[in-house]
């Protein structure tokens, strides 16, 4: 008995502070959040009657929340596609021995070092919705002015001030910021493929395209999966960038669950706010948990 304690005792003592902190500050608070989401605490007036899943049902039936979910889907798709395409492209270019690789690697990676809030303030100005052919068009700034002055005036648009597609404009700065990170992931993936494999393929008469198609790409799929998981869960939680770009929290066009949670919270609707928080947690878990299961299985193998 004592011998057993001797083996797992110190290990337990070592991890117990972390366990306690996690239990209190993560899991207990999640439980509390779920509890609030099942009450009728919709105003500042203290009230905590249990209403079960009613808030969830109402939210899912609410047109505004459906709009937020649809926006979230659109944002995630555009954000993922953009970062993967640009990240892969840059990594692919830099992977070949080219002049100034170190320099360009840093250039692409640097935007990630800027916080969303700081870049969001700049992007707010860049994504100004005024167009040169509208009334007051002489005040046009940002990307619309740039497009106009290089002769691409027809590309001007209202960016995020559009209830249907506006959220895709929010993905533009997000892509700008995180493509470099995805590039770094892919670059590491490329570097992990031994040169011998390429040589062997070439000796067997493999064309350059087939080399990528049958030798390199299959070995990049774990990197790709990591990138999708990391970018995907960031997109589901994206809040600060939207808040920094869009001045007013209530703005309908760009409402996603994260911003809606905030709007409900400042309106003292704590129950709805907590319910949206729980929904977001479940959404993120749907992405992350299968990935964790998958990686732990891989490690066991």
């Amino acid at each position: 008995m004592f011998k057993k304690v001797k083996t797992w005792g110190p290990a337990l003592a070592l991890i117990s502070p972390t366990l306690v902190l996690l239990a209190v500050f993560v899991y207990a608070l999640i439980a509390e959040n779920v509890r609030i989401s099942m009450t009728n605490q919709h105003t500042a007036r203290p009230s905590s009657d249990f209403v079960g899943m009613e808030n969830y049902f109402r939210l899912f039936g609410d047109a505004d929340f459906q709009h937020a979910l649809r926006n979230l889907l659109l944002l995630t798709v555009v954000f993922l596609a953009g970062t993967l395409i640009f990240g892969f492209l840059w990594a692919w270019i830099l992977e070949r021995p080219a002049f100034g690789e170190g320099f360009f690697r840093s250039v692409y990676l640097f935007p990630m070092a800027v916080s969303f809030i700081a870049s969001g303030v700049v992007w707010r100005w860049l994504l100004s919705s005024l167009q040169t052919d509208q009334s007051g068009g002489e005040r046009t700034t940002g990307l619309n002015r740039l497009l106009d002055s290089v002769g691409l005036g027809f590309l001007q648009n209202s960016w995020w001030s559009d209830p249907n597609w506006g959220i895709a404009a929010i993905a533009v700065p997000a892509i700008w910021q995180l493509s470099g990170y995805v590039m770094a992931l892919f670059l590491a993936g490329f570097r992990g493929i031994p040169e011998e494999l390429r040589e062997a393929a070439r000796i067997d008469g493999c064309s350059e395209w087939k080399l990528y198609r049958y030798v390199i790409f299959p070995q990049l799929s774990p990197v790709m999966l990591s990138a999708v998981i990391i970018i995907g869960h960031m997109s589901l939680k994206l809040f600060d960038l939207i808040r920094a770009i869009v001045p007013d929290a209530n703005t309908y066009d760009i409402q996603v669950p994260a911003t809606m949670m905030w709007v409900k919270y400042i309106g003292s609707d704590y129950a709805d706010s907590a319910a949206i928080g729980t929904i977001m947690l479940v959404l993120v878990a749907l992405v992350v948990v299968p990935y964790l299961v998958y990686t732990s299985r891989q490690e066991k193998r």
Partner: protein
Amino acid sequence: MRRIAMLASVAAAGLLLSACGGGSAVEDANPSEASGSVGVFTWWADGSEKVGLDALVDIFSEQYPDVKFDNLAVAGGAGSQAKSVLAANLKSGNPPDSFQAHAGAELQDYIAADQLEDLTSFYEDAKLNEAFPKDLLDRLTVDGKIYSVPSNIHRANVVWANVDVLKKAGLDPAKPAADLDAWFADMDKIKESGTTPLAVAGTWTQVQLFENILLATLGAEGYNGLWDGTTDWAGADVTKAIENYKKALSYTNSDRDTLSDWGPATQLVEDGAAAYNVMGDWAEAKFSQDGKKPGEDYVYFPTPGTDGVFDFLADSFTLPKGAPNPDGSKAWLTTISSVDGQQAFNAAKGSVPARTDVPADKFGEYQKSAIEDFSSDTIVSSLAHGAAVPVAWLNELSTAVSKFGGPQDVAALQDSAASIAEKFQQ
């Protein structure tokens, strides 16, 4: 001797407290014994608002040299940013010594959550019941108790106009339109002359425009009825009002959602890039600080159709429950409510003093007219600034108004406004 007197008064107060049961020790806090520092939470972080706050702090340090003023201002969104920070602080039991809140319905949430001290006895001690107009006191009183001290009054139904732009369009700046239809006709002329007729910014300024149009279309009584349930949100009058709002939006700058706050929208009028801006009278301070002359560079008038109505909002300060330095809080409230404090603050911020006994000669031309209007006009409570409805109601209605900006579906806005009203009027 003094100590004994103090002990006695404390004991007496204690008896009093136990007698009435619900009272609090804060009632004994004495501003004249204030020391330490006073943390005051506002959203007056820049522009004319900061100038006003600085002027007030100068008076405060004159009146209470031993007390250090601790500025806890949070910027952004007509206070929406600050309110969320404040809500978190209050919820975690970490209140400031005093915080800014719009007088009226906005306070109800704090009162309901039991976060505010009753200031009725403070009003008696400082003789404020005689100093503030009765109309205002009525709007501050909740169930017979008063929870905040107003520092200033603002008017939300004012149109600011650029004189040059009006002249260019062939309009007489001295003769504003009498009603909404005439105003829209004027805006058509301005549009033809090549200038944006109406400047507006993000959601809350759109809500304020919406409120002005509601007031102009429904009249003071109909507008008040929207909040107490006597006006039917689903009625034909409201449909007409929303149609008018839709029309007004068609005259506005297309980049409205991108403008960060009211300042950039008012700036458009200042720069001649737009003719009109419906904005609260804090715009006056911006015009005068930028060196513009009333009558020459800009003119102001009540929103057409709302002449004789004063769409009021007031900033007020509170004493939160559990404030770390209640003596200091009361010292701050004393300064705000004093004649000197109200004069210094309002002269700088461009608003109207809440006290009626502040000499008017120190104020600018606009303020003199507003002081007069405040005493003679019908007073209604502003929607966009939390005087008419609690924050939760305002929030949902704001989202509906913001949603309207895209597809401009009149029936949809009316439906959601009606169902929101139904939800909160119960």
